[in-house]
């Protein structure tokens, strides 16, 4: 028979269990809520491949068919950073679009936004846009206003100049793409979604833009299971003048330039609507995938704009 003391203890225990259960239910941030507020610092960071190019070799990150790739200019229009909490629906963000010269980026990347006095919890939904540049897109130093004007006038989301070199042969390229894409549900390389704001501290959030997707042998989904190949640079230079143009890419048939195998062209779209799949379509599609997160983390929900 239960005595009064034990009845009271049982009641307290039930109440505690209830509060604990309800609290656990309400917290979908995995218990990361720390109370208080903190700050968010958003960096845009170019991958090393943009600054230092790609090297030939047999390592995972190397170009497997002997090409060396380098960039002399690499502009992007990026912004509309946004974060949301799934548990409350609260959101924060900044709709601004910036034109950034990734080749000239500061060592730690561009600090594009600082959000202060943000609830110190996990913001589990993070996304951003690589946007087709429009009036109002602003450069961040050392990017010049001339760079921004160039991107806006052409409506480019990305523009780069560079060269591929193999066995003494050099192929140069200057390509711009209006390949605006939203990147959402970003997660760190170990799969943790969004970011957690520390109470009284600052979290660094780093959209990371990759410079090697043009050379992948597939359109990666999630983990980058792929090889890097660049022989198509020479294959598509039909006039053999060592300058590969956008028009040449549009006339370059993937059947001969990107043979399957080793390539897998799943998810390549007919971006120019000509009824065929060309190397232009392939590179354009890859230019809708190069937005990553916190290094090699993925933003798996992508939508063309």
């Amino acid at each position: 028979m239960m005595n009064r003391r034990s009845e009271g203890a049982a009641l307290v225990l039930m109440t505690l269990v209830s509060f604990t259960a309800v609290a656990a239910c309400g917290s979908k941030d995995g218990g990361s809520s720390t109370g208080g507020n903190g700050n968010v610092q958003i960096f845009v960071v170019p991958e090393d491949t943009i600054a230092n190019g790609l090297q030939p070799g047999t390592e995972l990150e190397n170009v497997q068919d002997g090409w060396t790739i380098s960039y002399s200019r690499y502009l992007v229009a990026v912004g509309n950073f946004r974060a949301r909490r799934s548990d409350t629906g609260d959101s924060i963000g900044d709709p601004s679009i910036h034109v950034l010269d990734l080749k000239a980026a500061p060592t730690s990347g561009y600090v594009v936004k600082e959000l202060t006095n943000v609830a110190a919890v996990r913001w589990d939904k993070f996304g951003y846009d690589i946007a087709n540049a429009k009036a109002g897109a602003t450069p961040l130093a050392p990017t010049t206003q001339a760079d921004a004007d160039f991107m806006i006038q052409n409506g480019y989301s990305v523009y780069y100049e560079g060269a591929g070199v193999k066995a003494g042969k050099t192929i140069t390229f200057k390509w711009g793409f209006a390949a605006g894409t939203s990147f959402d549900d970003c997660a760190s390389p170990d799969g943790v979604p969004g970011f957690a704001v520390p109470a009284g501290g600052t979290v660094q959030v780093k959209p990371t833009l990759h410079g090697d997707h043009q050379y992948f042998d597939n359109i990666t989904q999630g983990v980058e299971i792929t090889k890097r190949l660049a022989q198509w640079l020479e294959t598509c230079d039909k006039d053999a003048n060592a300058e590969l143009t956008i028009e040449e890419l549009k006339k370059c048939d993937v059947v001969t330039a990107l043979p399957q195998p080793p390539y897998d062209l799943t998810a390549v779209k007919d971006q120019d609507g000509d009824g065929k799949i060309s190397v232009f379509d392939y590179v354009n599609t890859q230019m809708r995938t190069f937005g990553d997160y916190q290094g090699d983390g993925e933003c798996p929900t992508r939508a063309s704009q």
Partner: protein
Amino acid sequence: MKHHVVLVRSFVVVAGVLAVALAGCVEASQEAVAYDAVAVSRDAAKDTSSGWIVTLSRADVALGPFYFCAAASGSSTLCASSIAEVAGVTVVNALAPAPSPLGRVHGFSGNVQSVSYDFGISWFDTQTAATPAPSLPGGHSMRLEGEARKGAMLVSFTADVDVVPQYQGQNALSTASAIASVESSATRLEVVLHPAGWLRQVDFDAIAATGKVPFAIRPGSAEHGAILVGIKNLSPLEFRWTAAAAP
């Protein structure tokens, strides 16, 4: 006795509060579902490619397995477990006017956003190489036969096509859009094929220039690569879910 009554009442109140509070965070349960899948051919026999009118007379196609995913990408790296699947491989006559059975979809109710699938050649994690299912036509994913005509020029062709996964653990079509909200087993999946569209990237001018009749397209050739572009990019399978017809 009185204390016991108070305790019981308190327990009921606390339990009630707990039940109401937890109800708000318990997600709706998913129901196990099973329903038919069929292949449906649409404008199957004819298409145009760079001025050539392509007409198929035979299209034996191996379909499956199919894995449907609740995530936006059906890639094996982003969709470790499917919400529904058609586990088997079925060879269908893709020119048949009537729907062809593909077996049963087994899975759970809920939203589908993507699919990954094979054409009878799979490369599972447990296999050291891509492996054709035993039922494949001649060991290939598909056998196509037909002709292409442009003005006075006529080309007849045969094609043995292998649609092979690129890497171990992936499907031949690693992800594609497939949108549905499946609520119950009173559902039917239609896999829509347009096989003549698979030849849109084939260079029939080049084939005509060879003078070979019929022209045989085999794995590893440029024409075979062009058909893969048709299958994956220009005329991919479509997935439609409809209410099942009453028995």
